[in-house]
């Protein structure tokens, strides 16, 4: 029954994509806002949805793919339920963000290529600056900001989430 609801929601999502395109007047000039809204719906940009957006806007799929790969904001692979953005800008880097990254990677069995856990719970990525250098090193989990992190406090946050999700 659960999986059925998930599937039924893909129909809803597709309807939503149609609405997004319509509300933007099917205007190819609004490709970026359209992609942002589509990503909000799916949490990433599935290939077939990009192809659909291209068809609906009357622009080449290669152009849509080009835009989607240009901006770091757009994801072409499904992201986890919790997206961890660890800042590795100058200030955070100097304040030792890399050991935090390594600790998180180890805890979640991730590496440079594998950024999302197999259970789709976490995605770990680095960003260049979150604009909160006073709190360095900074980490954002979904929309929640955590300042002055250290490897152990960061891992503790992750453990908390795992416990909450009942996947320990």
């Amino acid at each position, binding site marked *: 029954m659960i999986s059925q609801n998930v599937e039924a929601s893909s*129909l809803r999502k*597709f309807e939503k994509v149609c609405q997004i395109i319509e509300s933007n007047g099917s205007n190819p000039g609004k490709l970026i806002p359209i992609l942002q809204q589509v990503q909000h719906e799916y949490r990433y940009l599935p290939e*077939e*949805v990009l192809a659909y957006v291209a068809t609906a806007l009357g622009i080449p799929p290669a152009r849509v*793919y080009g835009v989607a790969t*240009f901006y770091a904001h757009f994801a072409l692979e499904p992201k986890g339920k919790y997206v961890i953005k660890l800042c590795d800008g100058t200030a955070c880097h100097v304040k030792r963000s890399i050991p935090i990254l390594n600790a998180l990677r180890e805890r979640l069995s991730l590496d440079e290529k594998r950024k999302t856990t197999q259970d789709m719970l976490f995605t770990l990525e680095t960003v260049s600056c979150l604009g909160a250098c006073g709190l360095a090193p900074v980490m954002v989990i979904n929309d929640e900001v955590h300042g002055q992190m250290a490897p152990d406090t960061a891992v503790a946050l992750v453990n908390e989430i795992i416990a909450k999700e009942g996947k320990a």
Partner: protein
Amino acid sequence: MKGEFVVIDGRSIELNGEKNLLEVARKAGIDIPTFCYHSQLSVYGACRLCIVDIEGRGVVTSCSTAPEPGMKVRTNTDEIRAIRKVAVELLLANHDQSCPTCSKSASCRLQSLARRFGIEQVRYKRVSQPQQLDKSSYSLVRDPNKCILCGDCVRACREVQGIGAIDFVGRGSHTSVQPAFGKDLKQVECVNCGLCASVCPTGAIIPKPEIEGVWKAVNDPKKKVIAQIAPAVRVAVGEMFGLAPGTIATGQIVAALRMIGFDAVYDTSFTADLTVIEEGMEFLNRKTKGERLPQFTSCCPGWVKYAEQYATDMLPNLSSCKSPQQMFGSLAKHVLPETFGISKEDLVVVSIMPCTAKKFEAKRPEFIVDGVADVDFVLTTQELGLMIEEAGLDFESIEPESMDMPFGQKTGAGVIFGATGGVTEAVLRFAAEKLGAPKYAPVEYRQVRGGEGLREATLTVNGVELKLAIVYGLGNAQKVLDDIRSGKCKYDLVEVMSCPGGCVGGAGQPVSKYGDASARRAKGLYDSDKMLDTRRSQDNAAVADTYKDTLGEVGSKLAHDLLHTKYKSRKRLSDSDMELLSGTGNKKLDVKVCVGTSCMIRGSQHLLQGLMEHIEDRRMSSCVDIKATFCFEACDLGPTVSIGGKVIRKCTMQQALDTLDEELSAMGAVAD
């Protein structure tokens, strides 16, 4: 702008409407280096090689700077030379420098600029990772390791052909040029015209070579290997041996091919004449009945694939004639095995074409009969030149020879096929007589010739008015299609060629340093036409014999089987279905709704929503799989829905829901 001057390197140059300093400098005889500037494409300003120094303004890119009267411009200061050198050196650092084995070696701009700037060593290390080559296409090979990201291919595909099959992917040092979703070229909407390859300054996109197979065939004593030579080849191959564009070298090509080992050499102009008669009759029939007008030409395989992807509503309007290449192939395989006393399998037909899309055309399944291809190999003009070089022949001193008969006979009409407007003029020469013009009336229709990418002509033959459009560049074809669909324009005949200037400007032609090479090659064809005694296809005696001995009447069953073909809608992208609902039950009904452009316009989205709601109302979602798919390849009959394997064209909501209910009850599906 008359009487206004800029000073370039100390010399006053009068302005005459040039859009940028680079053009002014070229006019002054200074070849400013550039990778990314092409006069027919938009200004990009990426390669930074065309920099110049303007007094009081400093270093700017000349391609994107408009000339202003009084400007003082220097093109070779020390600063400029140093910047250019570093730019080329950095490009070389990441470039796969396997120059001796690169087919672009002789005409690579990166190589020639490195030489020109005196670069003797590359001080930087390679940082890019080696990437795989894309050899999926029948026509082109992409080698990302040789790409310098000038974007010429991207803009040519988008701006000239209106397609955009490739684009920049990624960002910064990770940027590359790729088809959509990193797919192979064969899986996307590329029409194989090769314009990308002809604008590529390096070997990052090249025509797919077939030389090796041809050598093997000519050296195989069991095989009879014959060649057909397209019109545009004869006025261009000489350029690879130092001759001027437009030099007619038919006789040398024939002799060279015989020396290489070909058993017979024929002319594609022969089947061009045959095309004129078949296509001309088809046109006159349609014109008399007033149906399926305008008639579109079908000789250009790039255009045919484009129409199958983007103009499915117009497919009935395409002439059903095969291209001259394929007419030759099917006729040769029908007639020549008996002539030579060999089996069909031992006859090898090699086409020599100015074109990369012909390689794809020869591989279309409808042109491969019982496993035997009508055309076995397609060589480009460049490949012909390379074979002649490899054979060690001194092209200029080869004694010319004439073609083999009967398929070597041609008229002027069959020769001008290679230039834009040529097919139209050839058809007019045929149609005029049929419409009652006197037999010896002048044969030249200069109003259909020219250099513009979209031309119109209206002429009256014996009281019958013919409205014509002549187009090259598929972007221009799109404009004409839009005007026809909206009713803004009405034509009787539309000629479409993908390449700028027609086949003479094809991507298989030698890389030319002359900007007007296509025009000069076209002139060569028109000169050749003028010198031929017979200039109308209906006067080709060998064509008449072919009807008499082989085909029977024009439009006979055999003529139809051998010379005509069918078109079908084609998916632009492969594998992009969208799963919207996948039921959990054991038995599931498969429902597919096309959401491609044509079907969307016809309301497929509405159908999809209706089906979804209905399934939910009946609580049947565990028994159904729903996919939004991209093409059932029947766009003229959209919206198309498939329910449990039943394909419903022009589907209405009622039909969709009724069929769904029927299929569900046949399945014995029960509500959740």
